[in-house]
């Protein structure tokens, strides 16, 4: 009686209005109030489901983007410039990666690639804010080859929010060492570009390995940065002519490497060697490493299955279903028919690979799998 609406009831009304859009809470932003209100009429759909028929980017149900430019970097690598749709947060940290989904043959394929653009990148060539990733075609990588050779501007892609702990702090440390090889240069490009844009290029040494001079991604840009920024040293090491870069050469080339915060990214063998070298020097905490998921043809049978939410894991062979694996680890998994027809056991594969036991089809990270008829193909993690 005569009670004034207080903050609590306002909040309650807001929540009620937004309720139908609760599923996209993190991406919906300020529009969620309107979205929720209109969804009372469009239920069970969201207004976005109609809007994205007009423009694929007009939906916050899922992050999407449109490829606005594909630039060749080397013979087998390219930069993809993407204009994200509603709900993308441009305040990522340099060095992070995004998930990207590409439609090939009617099927969406998911992979992760490092962002090469600095945060809040506003390139006048493309108008509004855009992001960029660089992809190097792998000999057996079905999707990377497609991205380098088969994607045309205008293609709509799905995106997953930037993530990853391989990041450059702000402000950057006074002395920095980047050790990269091949496509391992991509996250570091984002860091270098961010430093350059923020006028915060401290004392930075970048040692990058590539087979030949033609294989060096971003060669011109590295040169340009080298000449413009006195603090930046670009050291290109050509493995075709000189063999692998030896970590022991550091003492001679850059004797102050022990004082530097180091970010390393490249082939697994190289990273193992670097880690060993740094640990032996007692400098483990000054080293930051990023390991890329290797695209491969599945030959692995079985592996360690980890259940994300409970944190439990179990090692199984290639004939044990993921459902059985869960049961043996004491994890409650949803299931129904146990024969692959009812879809009640579908969960998301958040890392690794699994195989459909009925026909051998491989399932990748980011896909949903039926646990009752799928087995681990190498180590994998389920989102349950």
């Amino acid at each position, binding site marked *: 009686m005569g009670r004034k609406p207080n903050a609590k009831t306002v909040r309650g009304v807001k929540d009620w209005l937004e309720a*139908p859009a609760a599923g996209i809470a993190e991406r919906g932003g300020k529009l969620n109030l309107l979205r929720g209100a209109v969804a009372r009429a469009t239920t069970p759909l969201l207004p976005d489901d109609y809007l994205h028929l007009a423009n694929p980017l007009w939906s916050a149900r899922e992050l999407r983007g449109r490829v606005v430019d594909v630039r060749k970097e080397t013979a087998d690598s390219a930069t993809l410039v993407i204009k994200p749709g509603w709900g993308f947060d441009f305040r990522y940290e340099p060095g992070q990666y995004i998930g990207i989904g590409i439609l090939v043959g*009617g099927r*969406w394929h998911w992979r992760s690639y490092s962002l090469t653009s600095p945060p809040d990148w506003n390139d006048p060539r493309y108008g509004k804010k855009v992001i960029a990733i660089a992809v190097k075609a792998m000999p057996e990588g079905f999707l990377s080859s497609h991205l380098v050779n088969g994607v045309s501007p205008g293609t709509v892609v799905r995106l997953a929010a930037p993530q990853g702990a391989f990041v450059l702090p702000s402000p950057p440390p006074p002395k920095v060492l980047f050790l990269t090889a091949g496509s391992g240069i991509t996250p570091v490009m984002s860091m270098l570009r961010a430093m350059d844009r923020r006028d915060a290029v401290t004392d930075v040494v970048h040692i990058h390995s590539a087979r030949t001079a033609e294989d060096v991604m971003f060669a011109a840009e590295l040169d340009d940065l080298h000449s413009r920024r006195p603090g930046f040293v670009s050291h290109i090491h050509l493995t075709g002519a000189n063999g692998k870069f030896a970590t022991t050469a550091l003492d001679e080339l850059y004797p102050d490497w022990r004082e530097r915060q180091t970010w390393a990214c490249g082939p697994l063998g190289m990273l193992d060697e670097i880690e060993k070298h740094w640990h032996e020097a007692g400098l483990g905490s000054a080293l930051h490493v990023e390991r890329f998921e290797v695209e491969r043809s599945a030959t692995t049978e079985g592996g360690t299955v980890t259940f994300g939410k409970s944190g439990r894991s179990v090692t199984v062979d290639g004939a044990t279903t993921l459902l059985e694996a869960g049961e043996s680890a004491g994890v409650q998994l949803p299931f129904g028919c146990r024969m692959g027809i009812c879809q009640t056991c579908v969960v998301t594969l958040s890392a690794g690979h699994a195989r459909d036991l009925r026909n051998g089809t491989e399932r990748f990270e980011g896909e949903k799998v039926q646990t009752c008829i799928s087995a681990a193909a190498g180590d994998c993690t389920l989102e349950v």
Partner: protein
Amino acid sequence: MAITDIRAFAHLTAEDVETLGQELDTIRRSVEQSLGERDAKYIRRTITAQRGLELAARAVLFGSRNRWAWLSGTAMLSVAKIIENMELGHNISHGQWDWMNDPEIHSTNWEWDMTGPSAQWRRAHNYSHHTYTNVLGKDEDLGFGILRMTRDEAWRPIHLVQPVANIVLAALFEWGIALHDWTIEKQLSDTPRFQVLSEPNRLFGRKIARQVTKDFLIYPAVTGPAFMSTLKANATANLIRNLWAYAVIFCGHFPDGAEKFTEEQLEGETPGEWYLRQMLGSANFSAGPVMGFMSGNLSYQIEHHLFPDLPSNRYPEVAVGVRELCEKYDLPYTTGSLGKQYLLAFRTIHKLALPDRFLRRTADDAPETSSERKFAGITLHGGPENRPWSIDPATGKRRGLRSAMHEAKIVLRAKAEHEKEVLRGAERTLRAKARQEKDLLRRARHALRKSAASNPA
């Protein structure tokens, strides 16, 4: 008693059933391997067309106080709702399009424009119904708990209202389905019956509230002065969609030839036997591309039950292979026109409203439910494992269930004819005997009267 031994019923050996299963697996794999851009386009176009049609219908209904606008708006909305229910909601929730790996067209995310929540339907339908298809006591879709659709179920007085219950179910089909799934959901998740705020209850309540508000309050209100006519249009569209969905489902499961099974059949069921059960438990109806599309391709109910998670647009081509297998193994492929299939289901509904004593046949040889016992002693086909007559010596073709059913039909007809003849004979004899007795009686009475007259007291 419905089928307890599917191999005996189907006149197949264990090896036959296994080979049949492998051949069906081959069909499945060939479809899976050829899925691609064309199929993805098909479902995306269907979604776009459906949404476009719905938007157009809602727009036209702003003028629904005009008779033509009302009629065309209602018609468009009905078609949109049918497509949304049959080709989209039903099939996507089956996981038919999960292979695209598109989070927006995925069985775990799709929510349909029906009263019941998709999640509850998925468990009740995809799990209970599709795993235990037509198994008495396990498949709750057999009569949806209110209709008696097989003589295996004991008659109760409540079944007398079946003809009315059938009409009510048809008109309110989405509500029937919603309540049905809600009950099963609570059973499957062991939810206490009296726990009012349980998760299934909340989900159910929220969905109902949203659906009802949308069609009966918000859309009519948005059209302002056309409130009442829009409300009527929405109600009509829902009714039409309900009737159509009901007809499609009933034609797929209840015409003669869609067999029922007992729990004994489930024990140790092999994958081949599972396929066989799906095949013998479902029925198709003939449909061209348009009617096929409007039924969500459930005119191919047999193919759908064999491969519930293969994309619906592929069922027509799958049907060609399935028919060939039926030919090869001499199995029946139950199909007919929509009208014929519905009338058969309709006949069963009305017949079984009556107690068994009014029914001539039993659950072993009734048109809507038969069992392997139907053939005992009446066909030339021996036991399932060792049958010297299984190959026709003249044509070299296999003689299996379809031939046996044909023979059984002839034999049963002859038997009935014979029984009728015997009955007629008995009737004749009795009548003659009665005449004789009457005659005798008359003569005795005559004699008595005569003797009375000649010997007056």
